[in-house]
């Protein structure tokens, strides 16, 4: 079994990057008290998912899916399209989140979640 695992390690390194990004993102999301950092964490988390999709599409020796330059195996175009959409969604979410944060800061004068919690429940 050990050779197989080595094999996994070398051929599927992209998934390690995905898991790492997801982990870092989730950790920031949960642990950081700063709202902006939370939003950054959210972005990192989403980036992990984007990377997952894009590397999913990859095919060794595949050409870009543009039909003009001769045949051959292409990488799958579908995930690229999907992630293009998802990135747009992600950007809109970030924009809304930042707008909310601006409003929260204007009102409460803090971005710290714990301080906010106290103000919020008073």
């Amino acid at each position, binding site marked *: 079994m050990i050779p197989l695992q080595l094999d996994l390690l070398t051929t599927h390194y992209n998934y390690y990057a995905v898991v790492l990004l*997801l982990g870092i993102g*989730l950790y920031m*999301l949960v642990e950081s008290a700063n*709202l902006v950092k*939370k*939003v950054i964490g*959210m972005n990192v*988390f*989403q980036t992990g*998912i984007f990377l*997952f*999709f894009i590397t*999913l599409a990859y095919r060794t020796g595949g050409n870009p899916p543009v039909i003009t330059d001769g045949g051959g195996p292409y990488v*799958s175009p*579908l*995930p690229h399209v*999907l992630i293009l*959409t*998802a990135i747009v*969604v992600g950007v*809109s*979410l970030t924009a*809304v*989140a930042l707008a*909310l*944060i601006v*409003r*929260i800061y*204007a*009102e*409460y004068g803090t971005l710290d979640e714990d301080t*906010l919690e106290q103000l*919020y429940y008073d």
Partner: protein
Amino acid sequence: MIEHLPVLLVVLPIVGGTVPLVASLFTDRAGWPVATLTVFVHAVLAGLLGWTVWTEGVVSYAVGGFAAPYGIELVVDGLSASVVVLVGVVALGVLAYARHAGPHSNAFYSQYLLLVTGLTGMTVTGDVFNLYVFLEITGLAAYGLVASGREASSAVAALKYLIIGTVGASLYLLGVGYALAATGTLNMTDLADKLAAVGYDSTLVLTAFGLMVGGLTVKVALFPLHTWQPDAYANAPDSVSAFISALVSTVSAYALARLLFSVFTVEFLEAVPGARWALLTLASVSIVAGSALAVSQNSVQRMLAYSSVSQFGLVIAGFTVATPIAVVGATVHLLGHAVMKGGLFAASGVIERETGATTVGGYAGMAARAPVAAGSFAVLALAMVGVPPAVGFVGKWYIVVGAVEAGVWPVVAVLLASTLLTLAYFARLVERLYFAEPTIREEAAVADGGASVSTGMIAVVVVAAVLAVALTAAVPALEQVLEQTLPPLLNQ
């Protein structure tokens, strides 16, 4: 035109939604009329679509002429048609409430129409990625609407909602990735076949199930992923609370059912009892924990939010039991809950405006000062408890019968107990409304509340209360619609 109905339903509100923004150049009061016109046409079209599905069966539509499974397919069967009609009707009803209750800005109505778009899209789509996009559109609009409250606390609630909601949606997207890796397709019907071909014990399929369903339970707000909900409902303006409490979780629960039946199918649930029991356990825990949390709330709106956690446990349990009769029950409860909960939020808004009462203690003796709203509140609360012949009872009856048929006795026990649990938090409120001395002085209430109540607002509350009982009469028709489309879905 009839064949374009599904896509029209999605396009219409999003186009309508841009109008108030453009109109802002000239007037800041264009939002309501535009939204009303759009939603009215939307509701009529939804009714038409529902009628078509009833008479002719499933309607499917290939967007842009690209045939499934390569293009995006919109599929409307009995289940989605009922939800689309619900979206149309509730959206119209809430507009009648919002006309006076506000918010009044053009931007609000643009977001409102965007939310209608997202909800309709989620309902009619037959493509799992498309579902993600509409899920996020729904989310974005809902975050914006929650934040439209005057107080800054609404922004905090909205941000909390946004972060948790995004994580849920992202998990769902990740699940879509796994499904795509396993099968190479995104079309729901196609996925159902190919997932079966891959094998239900495949790690990829199981992970995809876990992530997609897990992501959606965040949006449905099952315990313990419900934490965004009470803040969001309690801090949003009344109109928004009524709207999102009635529809956002409802349509997410519909999406979950769609995943269960159209993507993973009942065979998957049978082949992987672990998945079924996990979901049943989650639902049962949600029923109990949601009620327990609701009992301990002091704020009425937060209590109503926790009540949703509990009621959606009931709905998801019905869907997961997955016998035809349980699915009918879950659908009835899904639709009925939307009307009841929306009505309860609207009623609590009216009571707050008329008397200034927002807490369980403050509700004492308020029936005398807000008789119509209090009466409707009591009717809706009893309907939610499941007092027959209200619609809350019918849904519960079907779900329990289904659960007995399936022989899942622990779930049967929880379902039956849910009546008493629901009673526990609603009875104390109704008791205070009618049989206690007021704790809020009349002058104080007028000085504090001061906001007036329009006939439209009262009418919405009363109509919701009447519907909560009258919908029972519509159940046979609904059952018939579902029967046409559910047997293939449930493989009977």
